[in-house]
């Protein structure tokens, strides 16, 4: 029973990992850029949540998801417009990686200076401990909520991309950056919006993760690696693949922790390495 519970909880948190990765998958698919500061923005969102809670202590953290997401959207827009758009047209594929890595270094150390290096936690009160039962099976309420939210956001993203005019424009820009200009589309502006969206999604994941686990300015690295593993396991650019990749990592991590309490993310990383070895194009490639 404990094992089934562990696996079920792994699936539920896996939804969160999927959410961590889908923002990254989005920009990889649209502009072929890997944002190495993705992890730092995830952590920054949590810190913004902490700051907001300091100002409005009576508000429940889950309510803050929306305002933090809006702030993150703005930050992503600015990041793209000011910095990344200048290198995205260069033939050199590494310029964007190195640039965002520089941004990550600056952000990480700025957060240390501003917030200190101590571990923090977003208190969700009783919700974090509550669990509900299906027969003999005990499942946390918070993980269930997280999974539901993840699926909702994934679905919304999918609908946005496939059913709306904006989604059409985004997909066309991803296909042929030059040709869309012939139709009046400014690719740079599309990228700004997509990056904003990417970080907004990341911020939701960041807040939810901060409720579940403690974080510090140095946690960005781990978040980035998880997000990245999700993207690769899911098959680069595939969204539902990212969801399944996230679930696989979540299960691997929780099962691993039950076997080996000091492992940290080790088993998730090992799953990734094995996945790369066996199927470098993604374990869960789903036609987007």
């Amino acid at each position, binding site marked *: 029973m404990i094992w089934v519970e562990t696996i079920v909880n792994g699936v539920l948190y896996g939804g969160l990992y999927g959410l961590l990765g889908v923002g990254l998958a989005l920009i990889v698919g649209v502009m072929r850029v890997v944002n190495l500061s993705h992890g730092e923005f995830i952590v920054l969102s949590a810190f913004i949540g902490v700051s907001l809670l300091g100002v409005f202590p009576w508000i429940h953290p889950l309510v803050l998801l929306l305002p933090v997401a809006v702030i993150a959207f703005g930050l992503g827009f600015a990041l793209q417009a000011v910095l990344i758009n200048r290198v995205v047209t260069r033939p050199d594929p590494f310029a964007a990686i190195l640039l965002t890595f520089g941004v990550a270094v600056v952000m990480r150390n700025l957060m240390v200076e501003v917030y200190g290096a101590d571990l923090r936690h977003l208190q969700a009160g009783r919700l974090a401990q509550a669990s509900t039962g299906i027969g003999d099976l005990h499942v946390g309420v918070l993980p269930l909520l997280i999974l539901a939210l993840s699926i909702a956001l994934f679905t919304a993203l999918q609908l946005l991309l496939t059913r709306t005019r904006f989604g059409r424009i985004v997909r*066309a820009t*991803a296909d042929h950056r030059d*040709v*869309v200009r012939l*139709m*009046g*589309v400014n690719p740079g502006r599309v990228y700004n919006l997509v990056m904003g969206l990417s970080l907004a999604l990341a911020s939701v994941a960041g807040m939810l993760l901060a409720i579940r686990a403690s974080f510090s300015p140095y946690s960005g690295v781990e978040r980035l690696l998880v997000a990245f593993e999700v993207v690769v396991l899911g098959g680069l650019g595939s969204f539902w693949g990212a969801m399944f990749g996230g679930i696989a990592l979540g299960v691997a991590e929780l099962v691993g922790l039950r076997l080996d309490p000091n492992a940290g993310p080790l088993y998730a990383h090992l799953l990734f390495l094995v996945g790369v070895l066996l199927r470098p194009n993604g374990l869960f490639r789903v036609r987007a």
Partner: protein
Amino acid sequence: MTLLDVQALDAFYGDFQALFGVSLHVEAGETVALIGANGAGKTTFLRSLVGLIDHRRGDIRFAGESITGEPAERISRLGLSLVPEGRLLFPSLNVEENLLMGALNQRPGAWNLARVYQLFPILRERRRQSPNALSGGQQHMVAIGRALMSNPKLLLCDEISLGLAPLVVDQIYESLGHIRAEGASIVLVEQDVKRAAGAADRVYCLLKGRVTLHGQARGLGLEQLSRAYFGT
């Protein structure tokens, strides 16, 4: 009224000069053919017109307005539409979505989705399919339809007969008649001299980035044309 007036256009890819002092004009309602061998600069010329070549010199006037330094996004709103070489359809979008992309800058006029489907009925059947599932000729139809959706004053067609069977090319060229009837002027870039000259009012010939011949389509002899085309 002179719809398009190009004076002494130079165009560069980095340090490499592709066009040397090209002058060309298109009157409203005309069909002008631009012929030349591979690498003569025909595609470069069209790309310069729509703003996709960063480094250009000279004077380009469209409907009286100077568009020489303008970026592609802005030029697209003025009524100049390109059917690109190689079609360059969006593989992540289905046929209908590709057509709708062309309508982003829609000016008032006769062309809309229904009208394009009327012109190319096979596209309505296949409208939810990916462009990759279509034959070469059908893909050309999508590309032309996409360019028509904005109701351009001037339609630039880059090698719309390339790689197609003669019967299919007939179909495509027949559609040009309908397009003309709705009031658009056309620039036809082709390697197939007979086709282009047959469909056009006037012909220009490019060789290594320079205009080597210009005249009424009917008045041009074969020897004259091949000299201008090959440079012999």
